[in-house]
C-alpha cells in the first residue's frame, strides 16, 4: 500500500517523542530540597497586562516570603499564549512534574489545571472574577464546596461601590450608558451585575455590545447618542483598548465618564475603581506562601477581597458640576486636581520597565549597567525595585505594542534603550516618567532643545560619540592625514547628525570628511569603496544602526586598501578597526539608573538634565597596528584603556 513506509516513520517519531518525554519525566525523581526550597509553577493562559502584572505580584510575594532561587526554590512561569490546546498540555505537564504548588492566573488556566490535576497537587488560583466557574464556592472549605487541595482568591470588582460613589458625587444622574464584549470571560457577568445593581439604585441603563474593540467604539457612539447622564466603563479587554478614543468622544459630547480602568483618569474619567493587579498578585502570592509554609489549602478560605484602587479626576468632576466625596479623594492612588496637576501615591514596590528596540550587542551592556546602577543606588532589582525588560527584537510594530503595553501597565519609571524606543515613547507616553539611554542625538527626536530644556516627563543619557577625542587621536597618530572617510545612513537622523558633527570637528582640525550613503547593510561595501576611491587617509566610521551590524564589511574593504580604520563601538576593535574611541555602554546604563533612582525618590524628571556619557574608552588592536605600521604617540598610548592582541 503506497505510503505505508512514511506512516511507519511517523509512528516511530511519535514513539521517539514519547520516549523522550518519558526519559525526561522528573515526576518520580524528587531531589532532596532545603526546608524552604520549593518548586512552584505559575500558569497563565495568555499575555494580557492583568495576567502579567498579577504573575509578577505572585513571584514578588513568594520571593518576599523567602522562596527565592538563591534559596534553592524554583518559581517557574508557564504561558499558553492564548492557545487552549497548548494550555491543556501545559497543565498536564505541570500536573505531572514534581511541583510543590501550582498557582493559576485567570479563569481558563484555573479550569484547565483543575481538570489536569489528577495527583491533587496544592493549587492556588487568582484573577478569577467568578470562582464558581471553577466549581469553587467562596468561604471556608466544606465537602462539595471545592477540592481540599484548592484555594485561591476571587477578583470581582466592587460595582456597587462604584455606583454608590457615582450617586454620592452626582445625585442628579438617572441614566447611565455602558458597552461590553459578551465573548470575554467575565464581561457578561459584570454587565449583568451592573444592570442588577443599577436597578437597585433606581438608575436606568442603556447598553450595547460588540465583539471587538472597533465594534465597542461604535457601540459607545450609539450609547452616547442617547440621553445618558454618564458613561460607565466595565472590565473588558475590548473596552480597555477602545477606552482612550471613547474618552475623547465623550469629552466632545460632554458626557461624564466613570469606570473600572484606573489609567482612564488621565483621559478625563472622573471616578475609576480598578484592580491593583500587581497588588492582587501579591495577595495570591501570600496565600501561596502560606500553603508552601505548611497550611493545607482546605484551611485557607476562598475570599473575594481583591486589592482595589481609586483614581479620581477632580478637574473633570468640576467641569460637570460633580462633587467627589473627600474620603474617596483621600484614598485615591492618582488624583488629577482641579487645576490639572497630578498626584500619585504608590502602593507596592516600584516597577521599572526597560524597553529595548533590538538585540544589538550594546543592549546587553546597557542592561547590565542599569542593573548595576540600581544596586549602587541601593535599589537592587528584586528588592528595592521590580525590574522588567522587554525587547522588540528590531520590529517597529512590536516596539509600538510594547510601548503601549508598558505605559498601560503603569510602571513607576520607563527606561528606553536606543533611539527608536525613545521616539515610540515620545509618541505614546504622556504620563510615565522616562529615562532614555543610548540615543546619539536626543534633540533630533524632539525630546528637547538642550540638556536642561526638555519634555517634562523625559530625561536621559545620550550615547553621543566622543568625536573631539577621536579627532585628537587621529590628529596625533596620523599627523599628515588630510582626508577622513565614513559611510552614513541618510534616513537615520542620528547618523546624519553624527556625520555632520564629525565633519565640523574634522574641518576645525584642518581635515575634510568624505562620506557616502548606505541605506542598508548590503550597500555598505559599495559605499565604503566609493569613499576610499575618493582618496582618504583614515577611515573613521561613525556608528549607526546600519554600520553597527555591517562594520566587518568596512573592515574588509579597508584591509584590501590597506587603510587604517577607526571605530566608535568597543566591539569594532575585533571587527577590523585598528583604534576605537568608544562610549562605555555599561556606564551609560549606570548613569541611566542613577537618573531613574532620583525619579523614584521623588525628583521631577523635568528638573533632571540630559547628559552625555561621562567617559569614553580608547582601544588598540595591536596586531592590526603592526600590519599597518601604525605607532601611537606616547601621549595617546598613555590613555589606552585596553590593548587587543
Amino acid at each position, binding site marked *: 500500500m503506497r505510503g505505508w513506509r512514511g506512516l511507519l516513520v511517523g509512528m516511530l517519531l511519535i514513539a521517539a517523542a514519547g520516549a523522550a518525554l518519558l526519559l525526561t519525566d522528573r515526576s518520580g525523581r524528587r531531589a532532596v530540597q532545603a526546608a524552604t526550597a520549593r518548586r512552584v509553577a505559575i500558569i497563565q493562559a495568555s*499575555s494580557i497586562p492583568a495576567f502579567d502584572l498579577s504573575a509578577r505580584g505572585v513571584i514578588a510575594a513568594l520571593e518576599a516570603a523567602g522562596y527565592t532561587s538563591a534559596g534553592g526554590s524554583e518559581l517557574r512561569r508557564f504561558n499558553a499564549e492564548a492557545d487552549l490546546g497548548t494550555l491543556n498540555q501545559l497543565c498536564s505537564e505541570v500536573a505531572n512534574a514534581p511541583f510543590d504548588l501550582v498557582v493559576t492566573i485567570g479563569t481558563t488556566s484555573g479550569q484547565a489545571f483543575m481538570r489536569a490535576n489528577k495527583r491533587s497537587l496544592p493549587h492556588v488560583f487568582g484573577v478569577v472574577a467568578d470562582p464558581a466557574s471553577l466549581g469553587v464556592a467562596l468561604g471556608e472549605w466544606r465537602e462539595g464546596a471545592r477540592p481540599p487541595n484548592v484555594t485561591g482568591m476571587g477578583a470581582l470588582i466592587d460595582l456597587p461601590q462604584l455606583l454608590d460613589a457615582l450617586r454620592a458625587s452626582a445625585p442628579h444622574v438617572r441614566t447611565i450608558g455602558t458597552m461590553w464584549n459578551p465573548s470575554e470571560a467575565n464581561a457578561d457577568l459584570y454587565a449583568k451585575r451592573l444592570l442588577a445593581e443599577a436597578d437597585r439604585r433606581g438608575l436606568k441603563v442603556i447598553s450595547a455590545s460588540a465583539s471587538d474593540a472597533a465594534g465597542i467604539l461604535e457601540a459607545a457612539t450609539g450609547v452616547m447618542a442617547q440621553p445618558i447622564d454618564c458613561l460607565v466603563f466595565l472590565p473588558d479587554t475590548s473596552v480597555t483598548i477602545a477606552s482612550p478614543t471613547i474618552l475623547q468622544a465623550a469629552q466632545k459630547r460632554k458626557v461624564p465618564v466613570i469606570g473600572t480602568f484606573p489609567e482612564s483618569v488621565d483621559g478625563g474619567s472622573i471616578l475609576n475603581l480598578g484592580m491593583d493587579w500587581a497588588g492582587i498578585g501579591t495577595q495570591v502570592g501570600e496565600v501561596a506562601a502560606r500553603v508552601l509554609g505548611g497550611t493545607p489549602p482546605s484551611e485557607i478560605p476562598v475570599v473575594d477581597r481583591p486589592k482595589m484602587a481609586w483614581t479620581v479626576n477632580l478637574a473633570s468632576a468640576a467641569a460637570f458640576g460633580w462633587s467627589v466625596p473627600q474620603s474617596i479623594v483621600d484614598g485615591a492612588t492618582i488624583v488629577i486636581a482641579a487645576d490639572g496637576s497630578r498626584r500619585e501615591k504608590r502602593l507596592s514596590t516600584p516597577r521599572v520597565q526597560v524597553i529595548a528596540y533590538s538585540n544589538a550587542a550594546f543592549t546587553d551592556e546597557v542592561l547590565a549597567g542599569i542593573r548595576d546602577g540600581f544596586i549602587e543606588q541601593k535599589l537592587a532589582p528584586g528588592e528595592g525595585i521590580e525590574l522588567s525588560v522587554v525587547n522588540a527584537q528590531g520590529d517597529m510594530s512590536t516596539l509600538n505594542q510594547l510601548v503601549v503595553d508598558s505605559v498601560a501597565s503603569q510602571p513607576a519609571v520607563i527606561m528606553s534603550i536606543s533611539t527608536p524606543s525613545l521616539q515610540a515613547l515620545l509618541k505614546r507616553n504622556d504620563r510615565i516618567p522616562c529615562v532614555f539611554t543610548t540615543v546619539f542625538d536626543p534633540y533630533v527626536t524632539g525630546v528637547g532643545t538642550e540638556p536642561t530644556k526638555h519634555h517634562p516627563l523625559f530625561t536621559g543619557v545620550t550615547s553621543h560619540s566622543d568625536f573631539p577625542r577621536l579627532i585628537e587621536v587621529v590628529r596625533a597618530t596620523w599627523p599628515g592625514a588630510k582626508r577622513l572617510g565614513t559611510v552614513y545612513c541618510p534616513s537615520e537622523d542620528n547618523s546624519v547628525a553624527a556625520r555632520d558633527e564629525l565633519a565640523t570637528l574634522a574641518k576645525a582640525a584642518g581635515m575634510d570628511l568624505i562620506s557616502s550613503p548606505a541605506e542598508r547593510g548590503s550597500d555598505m561595501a559599495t559605499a565604503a569603496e566609493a569613499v576610499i576611491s575618493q582618496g582618504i587617509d583614515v577611515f573613521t566610521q561613525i556608528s549607526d544602526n546600519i554600520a553597527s551590524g555591517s562594520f566587518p564589511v568596512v573592515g574588509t574593504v579597508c584591509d584590501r586598501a590597506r587603510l587604517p580604520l577607526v571605530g566608535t563601538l568597543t566591539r569594532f576593535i575585533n571587527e577590523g578597526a585598528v583604534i576605537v574611541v568608544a562610549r562605555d555602554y555599561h556606564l551609560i546604563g549606570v548613569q541611566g539608573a542613577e537618573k531613574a533612582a532620583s525619579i523614584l525618590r521623588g525628583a521631577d524628571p523635568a528638573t533632571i538634565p540630559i547628559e552625555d556619557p561621562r567617559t569614553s574608552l580608547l582601544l588598540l588592536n595591536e596586531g592590526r597596528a603592526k600590519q599597518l605600521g601604525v605607532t601611537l604617540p606616547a601621549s595617546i598610548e598613555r590613555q589606552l584603556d585596553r590593548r587587543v592582541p
Partner: protein
Amino acid sequence: MTVVLSTIALGLVLALVGYGVYLSFRVLQFPDLTVDGSFTLGAATAAALMLAGWDPFTATAIASLAGALAGLATALMATRLGIEGILAGILSMTALYSINLRVMGRSNLGLVGVSTIFSPADALVRRLAGGAEVMLWGQAVPSDVVAQALTALVAVLVIAGILWWFLRTELGSALRAGGDNPRMIRALGVSHEWLVTLGLMLGNALVAAGGAAFAQLNAFADASMGIGIVVIGLASVIIGRALVGQAAALPVLLASVLVGSVLFRMLVAIAIRTGLEPNDLRMITAVVVLIVLVVPGLFTRLTGSKLLSLRTKGGPRAAA
C-alpha cells in the same frame, strides 16, 4: 507517562479537526474558514446540553449536527449565493461568534464534575485496575487519563474507518472527483454544488465533534477556543502528508492525519518540556515542526541516502 497519554488523547481529539480540514481543504479543495467557528459551536452546544442534564453522547452527537448546519450555511452562501468560498467561511465564522455566545448564554461554561463521553471508559478502567490509578511501565497513571486516550483512540479509529468506507462509496468517490475536477463531475451529470454542500457539512460536523470532545477533555467551553484551530487542523494534515507523500493510498492518507495530529502535539509537549521562556513557546513549536518537515528531504538531498526519506515518489496522485 501521564503526560504522554494526555498528549496522545489531545492529539487524537484534534485529529477530528484534522479530518474536517482534510475533507474541505484537501478533498474538496475548498478553503473553509468556518472551522474556527464550528469548533467552538461543537464545544458550546455540547457543554450547554450537558449542563442542562443531557447525556454526553447525545450532546456530542447534537453538537456534530450543529457543526453540519454551520457547514451547510457556508455551502449555501458559496454555491447558491455565489459568494467566494473563503469569504463565505469568514461570514459563517463571524456569525457563529454571536451564535456560540447565544448557545452558551455567557462566554465560558465550566464542566467540572460533569459526566463526559470519557466517563464510562473511566469507570471501566477503574474497575479493571481496582482503583483510580493504573500501573503502566512502573508508573501510576490516573485512570481517567487512560480512559481519555482509549476513548479518543477508539472514537477516532471508528470515525476514520467510516470516512474510509464513505470515501470509497459511489458518493464518496464523486466527492473526491468533484474536488479534483469539478468540470468532469458536472459533465458526468453530478451536481458539484451538492457535493460541496455535503463535504462542508461532513467536514464541519467532524470539527464540531472535535470541539465537543475537546471541551469535555478540558472541562470547559470558551467563546475564544476556536481561534486559530484551522491552523492546527492544517498542521495535522500537512505533517501527515509530509510523512506519507501525496501519492499514498487512501487509508494511509487518512491514518496520516491521525499520526500528524498526535505527532504535532508530541512536538509541542517536547517544546514545553525543554523549559523555554514562556514567550518563546510558539516560536519553538514552529521551529520543531519545521525541522520535522524539512530535515528528511534535506538529508536525502545532501547525502543521496533515502534512509530518512518519507515521501513515496511517482504514481498517480492519490484520490485526495
